[in-house]
């Protein structure tokens, strides 16, 4: 009964979804997937076939003398397709049929054998889609079959024990020992290194087999395996050459830093928002910045162009290009997919801080040293006080607060839901998807939440045989909700974590009567939700309209055009509230309510921002095969215009925060303020590509872009960026095939090209002035203006010359796959400001970028893979590693005192450190060795590097590692056993060092707490053998004492899934049900940084990365 109801509900759901997409589906009447519903009572088969012919485009062809079509049958057909109907009206053993593309159905007598046949279905293991055209064969015989549009096949019944082989391009060949079943269902594992696989490249696609550039890609299904809210973070370790580091885990602000092959250039102006080391990210043909917020289910593939092949994007591609392509509608019946995930998130590692007792002790130590180690010392925290902290007898005056424990939730929830339908006919293909994500704060009283809604509709229509038009609309709503305290710059997380981690534990958090205390500087994290909010409603809309026209009278000639318009509106509302805390007054013995820092009245700012991008391009391409020669050529033009504007309104003195709208604020002129401005930028460029191959054996490619950027002055705007690549497929050579038959594929490739980079602030060729920097005369503001950056009238492109040499091979049918790439890059004309060499005495305002830097980079990428299938077990292992190192050949730098301080010759970002050589344990040691003024016993012993018996800046050396890892690696293991699948992914980095600027602080005068790791075995008067520096230790600059190897290996993600057997799914009319459990950041092994997550970029004061345990279900119907 229940089951019936469920069926009915499902049917209604299905129908209503159908109606929703009616306009699309209606065109699909002529497809294979047309369903029939009728009832036959005692009619002949012939009549039935005629009936079908009348109500559809199907035509049946059969010999009435061979096929018994006059049999009377009684049958109920309910929403079934043609294959299913035919298999029901004919006895399968006797009759076979074949459906052709033009809907012609040939029915014939099965003459080959009197044996019964077996049937089965082949579906893609990763997507669950049927696989069409799979070759099914019984080994040692000539009998075989091919799967149809639904992945079904009928095979002559093999002998028991015979081997049935399933093969298809793009999949790993599977073999099954036949055990007398009637049905053989196969899950086909895609061959990720498949040669026939098509890879997205700039403005087009190319077969992996004939690819000559260094391009790697990953399929969308790989990315959906990790339950991370931010899809960009799932790229980490998956793509050789891509270095992804997640620096913080705050919902909605957890974008990782991404570098392709390390940092090839330098950012001389870190104060602007422009990062010249960033790769170019192209989403569906347009530079778009929301990769991290994509619906992972929408992603078809992510390609990374690492070498000269990026030259097609000339202008901004010097740091490599990431191309994200979203899924399109697929030919076939509508497939509905529903995914639901619930995840529990919790920080990976929470730093352990000193408790009140230890804190008071180290504070006393520091205080004692600051007083010059007096003979009689009256401690800031007396022994009695410390005893009270220890025994907890007076929680009001002597609390022992673990701030992290006070604010950290045991877990928080993350929910993700996805719904999509996908299908199409020859005429129209469509994809409609919807997804939501809901992520909450991991901290109590911290009003952080993130909600994301993704909607996409993508339609491709064959208007005529030659003209295809398409539209791809993607709407994104992301609501980010934070405390307003976070507001401001790159250190937005610091504010919170300062007051959590550095808050001193002798301060109460909550008084025993429940009142909230002030915490560190009156900024207790528990008060954050009382202080107002900073809300973003960010609603970008991305649209692409494409047309593709095959010129009918010239075979191989095609014109493509696209028009793209992106509109992003963001509304930010910042509400600042006066807030209060309580403080126990020892004199009155009452709790005083106190107003803390922050607003005196309710203050509200509304900020509207709008960004637009308009981009259109035309491409003409031509493809021709002439004997063994194959040529493709493409030429295109593209223009892009971006604009940005904002307007803001501010009021204060709201009567109440109940109505958080501008009009509720005070009308007094002094209580109001507003602001606004606008900018625009543009690009104009021409590009082209020519490919030639001979017998798919000798490959050559040439590409170029002639690029114009508005960032440069007229006359310096255009740059020409060419690239070429060559390939040789040795495995196609006859001699090679014969001598080493176990090598299926072996290709050598080489590429070289020149690419540009223009990522610097606009208008640097002009001297301009901005309003601001008012001065006050007589108590009244007088307006000021000030000069911006000094002009550089000669500013132009940065140039990158890239050379790649690669080899890829597949041996023993996939038992071993190797892909190795060696690369070199020379950057010149690097746009850098001469901040480091121009003396301040010249009095320049800020300095412009000039084309002065030179950097050499080199490295390699290696991928090893192995795949095998043993009966029901199929598995694959892929290991990849990336090495990238930069070397500055020339940069503007301060003339250094000592040669070992030069930046030149070392990687970008290499910093100066004093070399720590343990600590001074005794006054004798201190007296015997040079040290800076202010050094005491227990301080770090700094090595006198230049041996001049003075410790000063000349003793710093330039360290050759940075916080961008030189080596990253990933290990991916995938397994499939029957209905179970398992994937395990390890990721790590090495040759990377973090300087922790807060780690060294212990017992300092500013009341900051310290990590317990720092306090371990530190030098004290009684522990003169300690290895760590004393409390309140002094160092004249960064020393290697607090420079840590950030090597780590982590079990980044693991997923185990179970696909319910077909029979269960069929009962409730669902095609495919998969349940799975996955985890992210499950285990971490760190070499040195054990007190916090080692993936941070320096200090432990950040929103920690999250460990996520996820449960999910995916249903297809």
């Amino acid at each position, binding site marked *: 009964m229940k089951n019936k109801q469920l069926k009915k509900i499902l049917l209604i759901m299905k129908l209503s979804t159908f109606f929703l997409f009616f306009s699309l589906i209606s065109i699909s009447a002529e497809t294979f997937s047309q369903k029939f519903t009728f009832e036959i009572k005692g009619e002949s088969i012939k009549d039935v076939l005629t009936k079908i012919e009348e109500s559809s485009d199907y035509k049946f062809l059969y010999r009435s003398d061979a096929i018994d079509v006059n049999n009377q049958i009684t049958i109920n057909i309910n929403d079934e397709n043609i294959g299913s109907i035919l298999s029901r009206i004919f006895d399968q053993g006797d009759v076979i049929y074949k459906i052709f593309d033009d809907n012609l159905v040939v029915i014939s007598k099965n003459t080959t054998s009197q044996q019964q046949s077996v049937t089965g279905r082949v579906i893609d293991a990763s997507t669950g889609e049927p696989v069409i055209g799979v070759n099914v064969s019984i080994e040692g015989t000539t009998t075989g079959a091919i799967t149809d549009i639904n992945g079904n096949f009928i095979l002559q019944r093999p002998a028991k024990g015979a081997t049935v082989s399933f093969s298809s391009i793009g999949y790993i060949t599977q073999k099954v020992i036949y055990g007398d079943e009637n049905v053989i269902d196969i899950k086909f594992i895609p061959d990720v290194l498949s040669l026939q696989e098509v890879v997205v490249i700039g403005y087009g696609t190319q077969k992996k087999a004939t690819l000559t550039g260094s391009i790697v890609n990953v399929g969308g299904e790989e990315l959906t395996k990790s339950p991370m809210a931010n899809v960009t973070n799932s790229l980490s370790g998956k793509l050789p050459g891509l270095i992804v580091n997640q620096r913080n885990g705050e919902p909605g602000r957890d974008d990782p830093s991404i570098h392709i092959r390390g940092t090839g250039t330098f950012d001389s102006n870190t104060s602007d928002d422009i990062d010249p080391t960033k790769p170019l990210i192209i989403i569906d043909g347009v530079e778009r910045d929301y990769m991290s917020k994509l619906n992972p289910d929408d992603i078809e593939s992510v390609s990374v162009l690492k070498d000269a092949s990026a030259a097609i994007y000339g202008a901004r591609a010097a740091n490599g290009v990431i191309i994200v392509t979203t899924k399109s509608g697929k030919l076939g019946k509508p497939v509905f997919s529903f995914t639901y995930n619930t995840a529990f998130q919790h920080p990976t590692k929470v730093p352990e801080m000193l408790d009140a007792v230890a804190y008071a002790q180290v504070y006393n130590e520091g205080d004692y040293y600051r007083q010059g180690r007096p003979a009689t010392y009256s401690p800031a925290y*007396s022994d009695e006080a410390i005893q009270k902290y220890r025994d907890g007898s007076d929680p009001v005056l002597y609390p022992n607060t673990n701030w992290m424990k006070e604010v950290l939730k045991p877990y928080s929830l993350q929910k993700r839901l996805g719904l999509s339908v996908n299908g199409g006919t020859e005429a129209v293909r469509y994809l409609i998807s919807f997804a939501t994500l809901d992520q909450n704060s991991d901290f109590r009283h911290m009003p952080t939440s993130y909600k994301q809604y993704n909607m996409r509709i993508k339609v491709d229509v064959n208007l005529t045989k030659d003209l295809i038009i398409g539209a791809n609309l993607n709407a994104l709503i992301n609501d980010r909700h934070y405390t307003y305290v976070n507001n401001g710059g790159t250190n937005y997380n610091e504010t919170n974590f300062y007051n959590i981690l550095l808050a001193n534990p002798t301060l109460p958090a909550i008084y025993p009567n429940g009142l909230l205390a002030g915490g560190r500087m009156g900024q207790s994290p528990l008060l954050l939700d009382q202080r107002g909010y900073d809300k973003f409603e960010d609603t970008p809309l991305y649209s692409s309209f494409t047309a593709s026209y095959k010129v009918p009278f010239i075979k191989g000639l095609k014109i493509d055009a696209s028009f793209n318009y992106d509109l992003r509106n963001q509304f930010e509302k910042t509400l600042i509230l006066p807030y209060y805390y309580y403080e126990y007054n020892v004199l009155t013995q009452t709790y005083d309510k106190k107003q803390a820092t922050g607003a005196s009245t309710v203050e509200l700012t509304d900020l509207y921002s709008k960004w637009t991008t308009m981009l259109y391009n035309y491409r003409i391409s031509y493809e021709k095969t002439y004997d063994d020669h194959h040529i493709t050529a493409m030429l295109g033009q593209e223009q892009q215009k971006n604009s940005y504007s904002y307007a803001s309104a501010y009021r204060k003195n709201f009567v109440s925060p109940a109505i958080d709208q501008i009009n509720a604020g005070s009308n007094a002129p002094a209580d109001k303020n507003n602001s606004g401005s606008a900018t625009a930028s543009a690009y*104009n460029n021409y590009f082209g590509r020519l490919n030639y191959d001979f017998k798919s054996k000798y490959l050559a490619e040439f590409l170029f872009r002639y690029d114009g950027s508005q960032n440069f002055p007229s006359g310096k705007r255009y740059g020409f960026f060419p690239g070429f690549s060559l390939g040789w497929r040795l495995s196609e050579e006859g001699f090679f095939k014969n001598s080493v038959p176990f090598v299926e594929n072996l290709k050598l490739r080489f590429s070289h090209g020149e690419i540009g980079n223009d990522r610097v602030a606009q208008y640097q060729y002009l001297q301009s002035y901005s309003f601001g920097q008012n001065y006050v005369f007589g108590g009244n503001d007088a307006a000021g203006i000030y*000069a911006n950056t000094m002009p550089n009238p000669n500013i132009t492109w940065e140039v990158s010359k890239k050379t790649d040499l690669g080899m890829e091979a597949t041996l023993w049918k996939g038992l071993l796959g190797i892909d190795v790439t060696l690369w070199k890059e020379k950057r010149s004309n690097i746009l850098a400001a001469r901040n480091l060499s121009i003396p301040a005495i010249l009095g320049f305002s800020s300095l412009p970028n000039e084309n002065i830097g030179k950097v050499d980079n080199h490295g390699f990428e290696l991928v090893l893979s192995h795949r095998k299938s043993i009966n029901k077990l199929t598995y694959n292992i892929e290991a990849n590693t990336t090495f990238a190192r930069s070397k500055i050949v020339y940069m503007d730098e301060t003339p250094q005192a000592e040669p070992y301080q030069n930046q030149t010759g070392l990687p970008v970002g290499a910093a100066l450190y004093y070399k720590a050589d343990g600590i001074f344990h005794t006054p004798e040691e201190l007296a015997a060795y040079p040290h800076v003024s202010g050094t005491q016993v227990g301080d770090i012993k700094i090595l006198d590097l230049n041996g001049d018996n003075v410790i000063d800046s000349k003793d710093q050396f330039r360290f050759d590692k940075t916080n961008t890892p030189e080596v990253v690696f990933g290990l991916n293991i995938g397994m499939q056993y029957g209905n179970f699948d398992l994937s395990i992914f390890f990721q790590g980095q090495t040759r990377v060092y973090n300087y922790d600027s807060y780690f060294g602080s212990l017992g300092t005068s500013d009341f900051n707490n310290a990590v317990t790791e720092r306090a371990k075995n530190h030098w004290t008067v009684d522990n003169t053998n300690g290895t760590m520096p004393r409390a309140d230790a002094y160092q004249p600059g960064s020393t290697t004492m607090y420079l840590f190897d950030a090597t780590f290996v982590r079990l980044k993600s693991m997923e185990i899934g179970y696909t319910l057997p077909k029979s269960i799914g069929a009962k409730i009319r669902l095609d495919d049900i998969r349940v799975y459990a996955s985890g992210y950041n499950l285990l971490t092994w760190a070499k040195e940084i054990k007190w916090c997550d080692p993936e941070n970029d320096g200090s432990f004061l950040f929103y920690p990365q999250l460990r996520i345990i996820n449960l999910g279900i995916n249903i297809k119907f």
Partner: protein
Amino acid sequence: MKKILIITALMWSLFSCSDKILDISPTDRVSEDAVWADEKLIDAYHTELYNCIMHGHIINMQSKTTDEAYCSITFGPGIIPNGSVTADNITDVENTQWHKGGNIYYWATGWQYVRKINVFLDKMGTTTLDITNKSRLVAEARFLRAYIYFEFIKRFGGVPIITTTYDLTQATGTSFTRATFDDCVNFIEEDLTAAFPDLPVTYAASDADFGRATQDVVKAMRSRLYLYVASPLWNPSHDLTKWQKAADAAEALLNSGYSLYPDYTKLFNQPSKTANSELIWGRTFSSTNYQQTPVNNLGRRYGAYGGWWASNGPSQNLVDDYDMTNGEPPFIWVNGVKTDNPASGYNPQMPYDNRDPRLEATVIHDGAYYHGDLHEMWIASDGNSWGYDSYLQSGDNPRGDYILKKFMPGIEEAISWQEPYTQPWPIYRLAEIYLNYAEAKFELGDEVTCRQYIKLVRARVGMPELPATVTGETLRARLYNERRIEMAFEEQRFWDLRRWKIASDVENRPIYGMQIIKDVTTGVKTYTPVKLLQRTFLEKMYLLPISATEIRKNNGSITQTPDW
């Protein structure tokens, strides 16, 4: 088919490619040509030049680096009292630091504004615009350049004299060398002389133009300048003509219509625009450009920060230097040793009784009322209770048990982080001119006039004059002390100790605070000064080093200050 071709052709023509797409003018800024063609924009440019002027309403006040306060922090300005300052870390105390570094190191800002001023003077020299008040604007600009150079020579001695503007192409290949101290003084005098005739005589403190350069401001600057020039640091031979110049410069302002403001407390704690007969020049604030000195410096009682990390609490050293109301100092320093002065009647267990009223106006101590609140800094002898303003109550109450009161608003103004405080920062006021004059006259041997002008300053707060028996080195000590007391926390002490060449004595004295124990049974308080900080002053610290990086950037053409 045809349709499609037509549409394609149409679209192509509509979106035809053009280079013009790259010609975009900025919409968020003004071009240089526009600035110098518009009188209003020129005015705004000129106004902005005034930002070269430093003020002391900053997070880390300069007092932290002197013996006026107990600087509890070892970073930022803490490197000065700790003696760990070097040419490498001197930029930690630069005025461009977020915490303003006590305005100690002033280099980048100064040179930027020298360039801005030079650009302005160049443009005014060539402009064809008929600009109202052009001569006054030029005069103000030259005055500001003099201000910057005075700030330079106080710190570094001679620096390069730059009167031309360089552009980026001249950045390499141009080198500078330090001019002598005397050359710089002459250069300042040239600018002041040139500016003088085109400036108005004065603006009252309540005037809308107060804060701009005037003839009186020029005179005040000369008075301080020549005092510095004549002081032992720059006048080791005790050249009396220099002292005469200092005396003359001060004398020029003695009778210019200013008078000592009767209330020493209100002299500093009234908002901008308030009439103030004593103030010659200062930096004012507005409700949008305000300061937060009260909440930076008051104690936890008001949710304030005690000087940030409670590091600007007045020191016992300062408190000890206030005379008794009978005119006698409680302590006398003999050969670097501090001894009691029995004649003063100072009672160490009633340390705040019968003291110079300026103590009450400058320091909040145990038992003092401020803003209607009784401040209590004691700790019970059993350690179980303490005064609400004691350092045990909060790390935001200074450890030395003293809180700054100078500049703190009166009861009529609320104390909160939200209040836009506009108390001006005094730069020149009449009392200083009196003391400058007294000092110059003393050095010239005219002790009568010296005592006369000290008397004027003391009389304002009701303190008795110095008896005629106070002469010679004793008078010098009292004169120096008068300046310390009168201008405490006004960014004078740091420079005075250096120009007097007494820093190697004074700045090596440890900083003390007060420990107040209250007997739980009798309620009697015991006052014990406690040593809080060992200070270090090295001989080379009389002048500041130029940042080592800057020296290297100049390829050594600029010499480092001696011994750094």
